[in-house]
């Protein structure tokens, strides 16, 4: 009951600031990403999962190039900054030399689905014990909102001003649909941070992916759909709805593969872990 906000009288205490909710592995809440950006939320799910598993001092992050690169300044985790698209191979080399560590990559759709698609496919097929985190906003946010390999049909970007046209621009890649069936993939899921329930589910997915890695089950991936109001050229407050209705239609959320078994239909991660 104490969680319910009373509206019949003024609150007893002032509203809590986001800083008070800062995950342990975050150095500050001060970063330069846009208001309404989904990437800081997605990062939280990763940092909180590391803490949940007690791996704070045994975790290495390998970071791609995109807006999320700037988030490295607030991450309290040992990091390797990789090149655009190349994080899965770098993570592979690190994991082979330090199998006791929890290794994750942080990549965008431009990074993973465009520049480095072969890297992630090979890493998954090899069944490499690493977890790739894909922050999918359907654009190159960093360069100013350009079309990527995951941009959905009809989506307006700086180089598809009238919307992505399948006949002219080709079709988007469903990354989880592509990677889940590979033999080396132990766990594959797609979450979204457009609402509180989505954030909670995403966090469970990330945790389950990390658990698969720590058990040595093989490759794991969590794609997280994130808002990019700036790159979508929409008002900040419309970001979550846009994500849900426009992106969510093609990039279906849910667990696609668990314990090495493909699911018939993407399903929510079980609540009790």
């Amino acid at each position, binding site marked *: 009951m104490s969680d319910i906000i009373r509206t019949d009288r003024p609150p007893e205490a002032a509203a809590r600031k986001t800083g008070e909710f800062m995950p342990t592995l975050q150095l500050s809440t001060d970063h330069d990403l846009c208001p309404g950006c989904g990437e800081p939320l997605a990062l939280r799910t990763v940092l909180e999962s590391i803490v949940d598993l007690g791996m704070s001092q045994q*975790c290495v992050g*390998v970071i791609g190039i995109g807006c999320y690169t700037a988030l490295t*300044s607030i991450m309290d985790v040992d990091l390797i900054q990789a090149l655009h698209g190349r994080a899965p*191979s770098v993570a592979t080399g690190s994991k082979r030399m330090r199998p006791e560590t929890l290794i994750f990559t942080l990549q965008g759709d431009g990074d993973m689905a465009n520049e480095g698609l072969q890297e992630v496919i090979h890493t998954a097929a090899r069944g490499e014990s690493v977890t790739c985190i894909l922050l999918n906003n359907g654009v190159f946010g960093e360069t100013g909102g350009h079309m990527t390999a995951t941009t959905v049909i009809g989506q307006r970007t700086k180089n598809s001003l009238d919307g992505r046209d399948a006949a002219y621009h080709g079709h988007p890649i469903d990354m989880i649909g592509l990677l889940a069936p590979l033999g080396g993939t132990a766990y594959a899921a797609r979450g979204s941070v457009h609402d509180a329930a989505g954030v909670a589910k995403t966090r469970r997915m990330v945790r389950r992916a990390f658990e698969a890695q720590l058990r040595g089950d093989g490759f794991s991936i969590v794609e997280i759909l994130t808002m990019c109001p700036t790159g979508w050229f929409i008002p900040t407050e419309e970001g979550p709805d846009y994500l849900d209705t426009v992106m969510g239609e093609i990039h279906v959320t849910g667990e696609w593969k668990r314990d090495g078994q493909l699911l018939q239909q993407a399903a929510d991660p079980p609540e009790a872990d």
Partner: protein
Amino acid sequence: MTRRLMEGSEAMAEAAIAAGCRFFAGYPMTPFTELLENFAAKLPTAGGTCINAESELEAVGMAWGACATGARAATGSTGQGLSLMQESLSEITRAELPLVVFNMARGQSDYYQATRGGGHGDYRHLVLAPIDVNEAIHHVQLAFHLADHWRNPVLIYGDYLLGHTAEAVDVVREGFDPLPEKDWAVDGSRGGGGDPRNLNPIGMVPGIKGIDPDSFWKRLQAKHDAMEAAEKRFDQEHLEDAELLVVAFGSMARFARHVVRELRAEGVRVGYFRPITLWPFPSEALAQAAAGVRKVAVLEQNAGQMIDDVRLSVLGAAPVAPIGGISSDSAGFGVGPLLDIETIRGRVENALDGSGARA
């Protein structure tokens, strides 16, 4: 002594393992393939890992991740494969990571790539060019030491001859000066304490917004200046009263040295100079070696690349003439007709004409 007849590829893999290399990743390409095969065969029993990477792009990425954890790691290819790796090699250098890279080149036409680098930005690699299998065993071990000492990639320039010539050699583990702890290496241990590591090439510092490439890269430049001053290596002989100086590196130097010795035995005043490090180039030593000569002849198996550095060293004190050239076999592996004592002797003799070197 337990000398054994070994091809260069096998000897270099053994030398790397003796030096503590525990990770290798590569993608087949002649004449590099046998080096990869030897690592694949030998590393697992030495407690290491060799990954047959799906591409050179991925091979260099894997080696990057491995050396970032503090493990001794290497990758390699032939010049073409190294072209693919350049983006990463540049970043690895500027993230100050100690990677060893083998170029088992097709001839000597990758001199520019090795010494200038094909990647972006200001960066330098130490480049060692062994003359034979015995020296390669030493260079490979030295490369791992220098890479750790400077926190910088070191490249070994080999070729088909080096990789495929069998020589009687003994791979003995060498001792070097002690190295500092690798407290920079990522193992996750600094997470959660407010002071994590971030191995990056653009001056990002945890806890601080933005990047600072300017001061970061200036510090790197100072390191590269120090490397340049400290690591020049060369070999020379028969310099006394020489009228003609023959300059060559790697496999070609073995031919050049033989011809110079032959001519000296006949009383011809000809000298020999070999840069052992291609970068840093031993400019001052070469200038000194060339001080009294009437002519400098450069023997290299390419259209003329090292000759730039020779000219920059000699600075007009003597005319510098190319006596090498493009020379390949029909398969393109760099085993051309120039790799022949009589041919090279003929070219040196041509260069001698008018140099006053004949008694």
